[in-house]
């Protein structure tokens, strides 16, 4: 017992003198914190270094939007050029087309892909057989675990001239359509595949919220004469409202980044008119044509809009619904 009591000062170097000095060091000062928790700070060293190098350095690297950049030179560019690249993309019609496509795809994603998981979760919740529910869930989560490359491969095969969708189209309308290349078909192709991919997994948070709904609320509603539909409307939906709002804010935050990797894999020059979004456009401008500064300017514009969107969505929901991310 005595040994144990002696132990702590022994393993904390410098703890013995600190005991006497304790009164002189202001409580809550960095000196005290370092003395007491230096081991925790060493644990923080690597992750913080990671954040600084791979997250914050690139943020600072955005200055090349205002500077001339030389490949192989400094990552912060060579000399100031002011708003040259900003005015360049503001006068670039291809940029505005990509901008418009981004907005359209973003809105379509919100309209179609956001509500589907809620409906799906509610329908699953109505199932009485837990085994069947589990089975449906397990299957529906599957696409979430597939690489986007595999998803893209499946999309292109299913929508190809001889693919399943065209087989159906032919039997219904007698003719096939060039889904993968016709600009008019890109949006339906993208959105339907997006729903396929995200509906199951997207329901998971709602299902988690649904398990926490107080059963007695349903009983009370039933005693008040509420039918099943009214119970859903007045009990279930209000119960999962915070989850819905949180996810809506997060979705709005990723609005500008619409499925970059997927679009990059499934689009082609023939459907750029509808498929080219800001991120794919800046990818081509920056990395295929090596206009780094120009593309960085577009990228910065995109991130600033994204940040503004999430901040305002958060502020609005805090105001109107009392739910917010922070």
């Amino acid at each position, binding site marked *: 017992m005595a040994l144990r009591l002696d132990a702590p000062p022994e393993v904390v170097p410098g703890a013995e003198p600190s005991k006497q000095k304790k009164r002189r060091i202001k409580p809550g000062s960095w000196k005290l914190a370092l003395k007491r928790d230096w081991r925790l700070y060493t644990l923080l060293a690597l992750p913080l270094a990671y954040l600084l190098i791979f997250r914050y350095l690139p943020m600072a690297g955005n200055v090349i939007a205002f500077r001339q950049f030389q490949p192989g030179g400094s990552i912060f560019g060579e000399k100031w050029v002011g708003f040259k690249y900003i005015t360049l993309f503001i006068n670039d019609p291809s940029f505005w087309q990509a901008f418009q496509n981004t907005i359209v795809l973003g809105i379509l994603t919100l309209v179609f892909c956001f509500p589907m998981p809620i409906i799906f979760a509610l329908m699953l919740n109505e199932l009485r057989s837990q085994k069947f529910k589990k089975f449906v869930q397990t299957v529906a989560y599957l696409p979430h675990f597939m690489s986007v490359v595999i998803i893209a491969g499946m999309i292109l095969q299913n929508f190809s001239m001889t693919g399943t969708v065209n087989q159906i189209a032919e039997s219904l309308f007698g003719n096939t359509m060039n889904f993968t290349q016709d600009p008019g078909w890109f949006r339906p192709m993208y959105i339907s595949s997006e729903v396929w991919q995200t509906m*199951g997994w997207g329901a998971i948070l709602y299902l988690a919220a649904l398990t926490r709904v107080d059963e007695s609320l*349903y009983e009370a509603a039933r005693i008040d004469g509420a039918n099943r539909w009214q119970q859903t409307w007045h009990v279930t939906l209000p119960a999962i409202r915070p989850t819905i709002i949180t996810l809506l804010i997060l979705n709005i935050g990723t609005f500008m980044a619409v499925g970059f990797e997927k679009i990059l894999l499934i689009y082609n020059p023939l459907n750029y008119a509808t498929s080219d979004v800001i991120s794919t456009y800046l990818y081509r401008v920056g990395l295929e044509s090596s206009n780094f500064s120009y593309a960085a300017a577009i990228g910065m514009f995109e991130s600033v809009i994204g940040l503004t969107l999430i901040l305002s969505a958060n502020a609005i929901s805090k105001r109107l619904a009392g739910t917010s991310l922070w």
Partner: protein
Amino acid sequence: MVNKTATKSAPSLRPRAAGGVLLKDMRVSTGMRIFRAFNLVFLLFVVFLTVYPFLNIIAQSFSSEGFINAGQVNLFPMGFNTETYKLILAESTFWTNYGNTLLYTVVATAISMVLTTSFAYAIAKKDLKGRSVFIGLAVFTMFFNGGLIPNYVLISSLGMRDSIWAVVLPNAISVFNLLIMKSFFENMPRELEEAASIDGLTQYGILFRVVLPLSKAIVATMVLFYAVANWNSWFQAFLYLDNPDLFPVTIYLRNMIAGVTTAGSAGGTAENVGQIAANIQSVTIVLTVIPILCVYPFVQKYFFSGVMLGSVKE
């Protein structure tokens, strides 16, 4: 049987309600029955739609070109053919790339786990000075990032191009996973750690000998999250790797898919090349998907619990 399942399901209205309520319930049940039938059919349809593309790819991978060309392959293989499997399985690049995927996944997951665990453990300590700054630094990156070009420039200037580091380092910490782990550590009983420190364990000792052994479930979940993300990733490799011997299998597949689209848009005889490639593509997709499909049924419950853990806090 029906009764048994009904009592088990929590939100069902049948069993628990007493007397009049139950009677009332029985009366509406015609409409209810129609709804239930519709619900069942709808959900079965969802299951079918989800599984169909996979079945279609499997069918195509075993079909011969003639039938794929004619657009006759959907659920079942037509003109059974395993030549393409033999072809791909004999290809050394395919195996090299498969090995790379395995290597990248293991290394990247290990790095991610070390960084995420130590970070989460430290910021879970409520009285750590500067804690909110560290959390803020991490959370901010969820909503604002440097963007493609500055990242590309950085990785290139660090000399990581054409090396494993360009694949395994840039996305080492997922802030989402970090927050899940943090809230798990926060919910651990404080007394445990206090007792351990009275017993003379340092903060390192507490982490390795007390906290981690009690966190096996969350650690397993995090390993799965990272491993799946790394197994599936392709973009980092696509950006930074030029040497085909370093490609992960996702890039092997991506190049195959991209080859088809360009062949298709070039027109002419390329049409035929595209069609044959549909078969090769399907085979490659099937071979890439198999490991995930095999592991998925056994591990999916961990994903669910991981998400639950993360959502409880929010």
